[in-house]
C-alpha cells in the first residue's frame, strides 16, 4: 500500500544510467544503493561523501533513466513522507496544533531524512523530535516546543507500555514491615519531565481543554515552570503537573530508591515542603493508578524502565 502523492526530488541525480553489464553486485550493495536513493534529502541526492567512498555503487535498476522508473522511486519516497507525517502526527498532536499542519508535515519529512527509522515499528520512530525542535534556529522564539514534545513522546510511549498488575494487598506492608528497602510500585510508562515552561498545561489545554487555552497562554507568558508527570491509569495515558515535592519523590522511586530515601528527597524540596502531605498524595496516587502497589527492592525492581532504549 502506498500513497499516490508526488514529491519533488532530484531523482535524476540518484539514477546513474549504468554503463556496465556486470550484474553480480553483492545483494547488500544493491539494497544499500536503493535505500540511499530513497533517503537522499531532496536537493541533496548524495547522502554523504563518506558514504560514496564506502559503497558508491550506482542504483542498478532496469530502465534506470526512464520516466516510469523515476516515477516509481518518487512513489516510494512519497510513501515514506506520508508515513512519516502520519506516524509523527499521531505521536505529536499538540506540536501539530501549535505549529500548524503544513509546518508539521515539513518537519516530519525533515526528521524522516535526518533521523530515519532504525526499526520496523513506526511507534518507536519520532523520539528525535524534541532535540530536533530544540536545535532549530527557526524555532528559537518558541523554546517551549521541545518540552511539549518531550511530554507528548512520554505519553505516546506510555500508551503501549506493559499493562500494570495492581497489587492492593501489598499496601499493608507499609504498616507491617520496616520501611527500609520498601518502594512504591509505579504504573508502567511513568515519566517525569521538569520544564521551565508550563508544558503540562499546554498539553492538557490542547488535548482536554483543561486549563482553557488562554489560561495556559497566561502561564506561558508568566514564565511558569512545571514538573510534568506522565503515567498510565489502566489503559489510559495520563499527564499532569505535580507538586515539586511529589516530583522529587517520584524521581527517586524511578531511580530505584526506597521509600525512606524518596520521602527524604520530598522533604528536602525547598518549594513549599510543608504543603506536601504524603498520605494525602498516596491516596490520590493510588486512585489515579500511578501507584499500583508496594514492593521490596531487588536488583531490578518493577520501576526499572520496561522499554529499553534503542541501541
Amino acid at each position, binding site marked *: *500500500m*502506498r*500513497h*499516490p502523492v508526488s514529491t519533488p526530488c532530484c531523482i535524476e541525480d540518484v539514477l546513474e544510467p*549504468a554503463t556496465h553489464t556486470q*550484474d*553480480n*553486485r*553483492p*545483494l*547488500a550493495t*544493491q*539494497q*544499500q544503493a*536503493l*535505500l*540511499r536513493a*530513497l*533517503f*537522499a534529502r531532496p536537493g541533496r541526492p548524495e*547522502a*554523504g561523501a*563518506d*558514504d560514496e567512498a*564506502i559503497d558508491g555503487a550506482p542504483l*542498478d*535498476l*532496469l*530502465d534506470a533513466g*526512464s*520516466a*516510469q*522508473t523515476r*516515477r*516509481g*522511486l518518487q*512513489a*516510494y519516497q512519497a*510513501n*515514506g513522507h506520508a*508515513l512519516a507525517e502520519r506516524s509523527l502526527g499521531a505521536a505529536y498532536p499538540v506540536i501539530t496544533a501549535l505549529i500548524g499542519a503544513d509546518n508539521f508535515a515539513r518537519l516530519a519529512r525533515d526528521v524522516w531524512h535526518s533521523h*530515519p*527509522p*532504525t*526499526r*520496523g*515499528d*513506526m*511507534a518507536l*520512530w519520532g523520539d528525535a523530535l524534541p532535540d530536533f525542535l530544540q536545535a532549530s534556529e527557526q524555532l528559537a522564539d518558541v523554546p517551549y516546543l521541545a518540552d511539549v514534545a518531550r511530554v507528548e513522546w512520554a505519553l505516546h510511549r506510555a*500508551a*503501549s*507500555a*506493559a*499493562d500494570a498488575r495492581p497489587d492492593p494487598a501489598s499496601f499493608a506492608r507499609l504498616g507491617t514491615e520496616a520501611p527500609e528497602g520498601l518502594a512504591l510500585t509505579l504504573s508502567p510508562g511513568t515519566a517525569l519531565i521538569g520544564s521551565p515552561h508550563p508544558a503540562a498545561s499546554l498539553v492538557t489545554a490542547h488535548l482536554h481543554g483543561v486549563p482553557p487555552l488562554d489560561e495556559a497562554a497566561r502561564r506561558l507568558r508568566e514564565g511558569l515552570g512545571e514538573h510534568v508527570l506522565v503515567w*498510565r491509569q489502566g*489503559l*489510559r495515558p495520563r499527564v499532569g503537573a505535580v507538586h515539586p515535592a511529589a516530583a522529587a519523590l517520584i524521581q527517586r522511586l524511578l531511580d530505584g530508591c526506597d521509600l525512606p530515601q524518596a520521602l527524604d528527597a520530598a522533604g528536602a524540596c525547598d518549594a513549599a515542603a510543608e504543603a506536601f502531605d504524603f498520605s494525602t498524595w498516596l491516596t490520590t496516587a493510588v486512585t489515579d493508578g500511578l501507584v499500583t502497589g508496594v514492593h521490596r527492592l531487588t536488583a531490578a525492581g518493577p520501576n526499572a524502565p*520496561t*522499554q529499553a532504549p534503542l541501541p
Partner: protein
Amino acid sequence: MPRPARPVRAAVPGVGIGWRHPHYAELLQNRPALDFIEVHSENFFGAGGAALAVLREGRAHYPVSLHGVGLSLGSASGIDPWHLDQLAHLVQAIDPVRVSDHASFARGQHPGETGQALHAVDLLPVPFSRAALDAMCANVQRVQDRLRRPIAVENLSAYVRWRQAEMDEPEFLNTLAQRSGCQLLVDVNNIAVNALNAQLRGDTADPLASCARWLDAIAPAHVAEIHLAGHVHCGDIVIDDHGSRVRDDVWALYRHALRRFGAVPTLIEWDTDVPALAVLLDEAERARAQARHALRPPATTPDAVTA
C-alpha cells in the same frame, strides 16, 4: 517438473477484512459475520496498552491473521532479532490463524552514518536472483524456526525493477516455498498493478493475460491466502493504494485464481481513506459471491478466463 495437485479445500473460501483503527469499536460491538480479521502485526508490538487489549478482544470473537510489513524477509543484512522477538510474543499472545509478511526488503544501513541501522518501513523489491533467493530462504527459515510455524510470504507491487534477474517472480516464489517450507500469500491486486505498469511502459499489450499466466505458474499447494484491494491510475503510473473498491479486472483474476488454487482464504484490504465498515463488509460479500461463481461445478461454469 510436475506441479503439485490442487489441494483439497472447502467449497467456498473464508473471507476476512483488514481490521483498522476506525472500525475497532464498531466491529466489536456489531460482530459482523466474517471468517477472520486481519491486522498489521507491527501495530501491536507494544508490551501492553489499549491497542493490544482491543486486539485480544477481537481475537475472542474471530480468528486473526497477523500480517507483517516489517520483517524485511529479503534483506541481505538478515532479520532484526528485536523485530522477531516482538512478533514471537504477539503470536504467542494472539494464537493467529495465519502469520504472513512480504517478499521484500527494508533493512540496511544509514547512508550517512556508518553502522547505524536503517529501516525504510516500506516493501522494497528484491532482485529475482539466486543470491536474493538464498537470503530470503535463510531469513524465512529463521522466522519459522522461532515461531515454530510456517509463515506465508506475499508477492509485491513493485515500482522499480532490478536489472539483475535470473528467474521470474513465480519461479522465485515457488522455489522459496519449496526450499523454506513457507506458504505463499497471493495478492491478486499486486499482480494486476505490476501488469498495468508493464502495459504503461509497453512491455505487455494484454495485462490481464499476463496476470493469468503469472497465476498459472504458481504451485497451488503453496497458496495459503489471497489478498484483494483497490488501486489507482495516476496517468503515468498505477499505484497500489488500497484506497478503493476492488476493480473488475481484479475480480476476474480472483475468479481465475480460485479456479486454480481452490477456496483459499481471502482478505479484503483497505488502508487509505478507509470507508464505513459496511463498505468493507459489502466487498467481503462480493468476494463470497465471486467465489461461488468461480467454484461452481465445471458443468455449469464456462471455463474461459473471463479476464
